[in-house]
């Protein structure tokens, strides 16, 4: 953790760690470790709690601006106090539990959902020295924590004993399970190339510069781009966001498995969705966008956590942008899209990565051949599967009555 003092590291870079050492250096050993992790937990909750609040406001402002209306601007200047107002409203709402609901499960569902989505923040490297827990199998930890969200969604749907919630719980499970596979398959190439499961290792693998200025992020390789796109689409589905927000499809089953929740528990679900979205974007930044590395060598002086934040914010804006534009998919189209389009593409991507890593040493004309073969291996299956998936779906031309 205490990497050697390499040159050119600015004071700002080491500021968070210095602050932490200042607070806990005088404690004896077991207590010092305990205090350090406590500070890390408080920091994560504070930063991502505020990010959650800002995200709800940003979502409503951006959606508003896209729809030619200003968005919330009544509470505070430019509506900045809106999240606080929402929070107070939600927390002061009566917490209704249906009489014949399964009270224990009804309470446990939002708690487990929120707990598992917060646990996921433990392994994401936010900066050069800012990683809460240094795990050897960090990426595997991240996705096994993600797997427990299905359990919580099922408990929510089942415990409400309500026809709509039951239907929605079944749908949510089908969606989560069918998008777990592409999610896992999409980051396997990254592990194959960087040779390690630990996130710091992966970020280190992307630290070199090619031709002096281009960063060797995984997203700039053909298989990396394909993996990144599949990862983001699967992340959209995992966090129940726009084209896949089927469980709470308000136009069909009211609020899906959230129908029987109100007040604080509803906020937990809401918060869990946003935390899940942020965690998945954080992992996408770590795996494909070079974690906390700066895009250009000349910009190295800006502290690493600022770069991580900037990339995270752009990805989240992408989520909101997609939500503002696309209609929703039906449940059978959604699962068919996963099994018949994303999974095959991810498997082919494994092959492309294998070819890419084997042909590592090629230079000159061979390098050009290597790139073109990789691009072909990515694009051709995409076009073929795409045509088969949307067979017959074309904008039509119309004739006129005589």
């Amino acid at each position: 953790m205490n990497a050697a003092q390499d040159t050119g590291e600015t004071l700002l870079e080491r500021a968070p760690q210095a602050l932490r050492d200042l607070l806990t250096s005088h404690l004896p050993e077991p207590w010092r470790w305990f205090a350090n992790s406590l500070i890390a937990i408080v920091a994560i909750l504070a930063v991502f709690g505020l990010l959650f609040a800002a995200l709800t406001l940003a979502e409503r402002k951006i959606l508003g601006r896209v729809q030619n209306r200003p968005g919330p601007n009544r509470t505070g200047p430019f509506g900045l106090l809106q999240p606080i107002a929402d929070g107070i409203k939600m927390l002061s709402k009566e917490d209704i539990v249906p009489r014949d609901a399964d009270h224990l499960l009804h309470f446990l569902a939002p708690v487990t959902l929120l707990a598992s989505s917060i646990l996921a923040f433990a392994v994401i490297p936010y900066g050069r020295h800012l990683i809460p827990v240094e795990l050897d199998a960090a990426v595997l930890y991240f996705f096994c924590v993600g797997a427990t969200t299905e359990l919580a969604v099922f408990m929510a749907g089942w415990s409400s004993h309500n026809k709509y919630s039951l239907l929605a719980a079944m749908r949510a499970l089908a969606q989560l399970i069918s998008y777990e596979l592409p999610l896992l398959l999409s980051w396997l190439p990254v592990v194959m190339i960087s040779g390690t499961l630990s996130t710091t290792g992966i970020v280190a693998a992307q630290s070199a510069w090619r031709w002096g200025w281009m960063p060797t992020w995984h997203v700039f390789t053909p298989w990396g781009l394909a993996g990144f796109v599949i990862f983001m689409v699967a992340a959209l589905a995992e966090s129940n966001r726009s084209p896949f927000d089927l469980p709470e499809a308000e136009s069909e089953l009211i609020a899906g498995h959230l129908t029987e929740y109100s007040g604080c528990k509803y906020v937990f679900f809401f918060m869990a969705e946003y935390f899940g979205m942020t965690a998945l974007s954080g992992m996408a930044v770590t795996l494909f966008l070079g974690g906390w590395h700066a895009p250009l060598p000349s910009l190295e002086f800006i502290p690493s956590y600022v770069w991580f934040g900037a990339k995270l914010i752009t990805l989240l804006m992408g989520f909101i942008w997609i939500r503002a534009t696309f209609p929703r998919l039906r449940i059978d189209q959604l699962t068919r899209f996963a099994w018949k389009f994303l999974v095959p593409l991810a498997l082919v991507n494994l092959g492309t990565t294998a070819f890419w890593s084997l042909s590592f040493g090629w230079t000159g004309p061979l390098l050009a051949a290597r790139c073109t073969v990789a691009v072909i291996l990515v694009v051709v299956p995409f076009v073929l599967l795409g045509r088969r998936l949307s067979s017959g779906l074309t904008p039509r031309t119309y004739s006129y009555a005589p």
Partner: protein
Amino acid sequence: MLGTGLLQGLAVTAKNFAGSFHDPKRLTTVEYPEKKSVIPEAFRNFPFLVSENAEDPMGTLRCVACQICEKECPPQCIYIEKSKDKKPDASGKMQIYPAVFRIDSSVCMNCQICVEVCPFDAIKMDHVYEIATSERFETLLLDRHDLAKPNSYFHQIRPLEAAEVDGRLTAERKAAEEKAKAAALAKAALAAKPAAPAPAAPPKPPEQA
């Protein structure tokens, strides 16, 4: 190729997002309490009774309680009781005036048929739209006091229509006066010939046009 339609959609939303910052056409919200949207002149909401002058709006109502509007109103929300005595109106003629003139604004649907059928231009449509009340019954039963508004107010909210109505009314009054003067002249001429045969029947009183 799969996805081109989706990218086009994203491009349009991005254009609108950027446009909403500089292009007034793409940010059409009027933020109500601070800025109010412009009401066109033809806007109609809830009738009011036109009175000649502003000092005594109740006294100088144009309405002569002919109850045509009460009969013609589709939801029947107007209730008129004629007065027993008569009162001189603007042109000095003795007219009945409405003792009770009530409109139930919770039933009225602003269809302005009463304005169309009123032969005396006594009832016109208002421009008021901030009329929320805390109580469902009494305050919505508008009486003569709430309904009567001066002609100057009518000019203020509907300049063109008010000018046209006033032009017509003054023309009618002038015509009525000439006829009255002509009738008076004819009567004077008859009185001037003392031994004329039995005077012709007095000309019909100049009835209201």
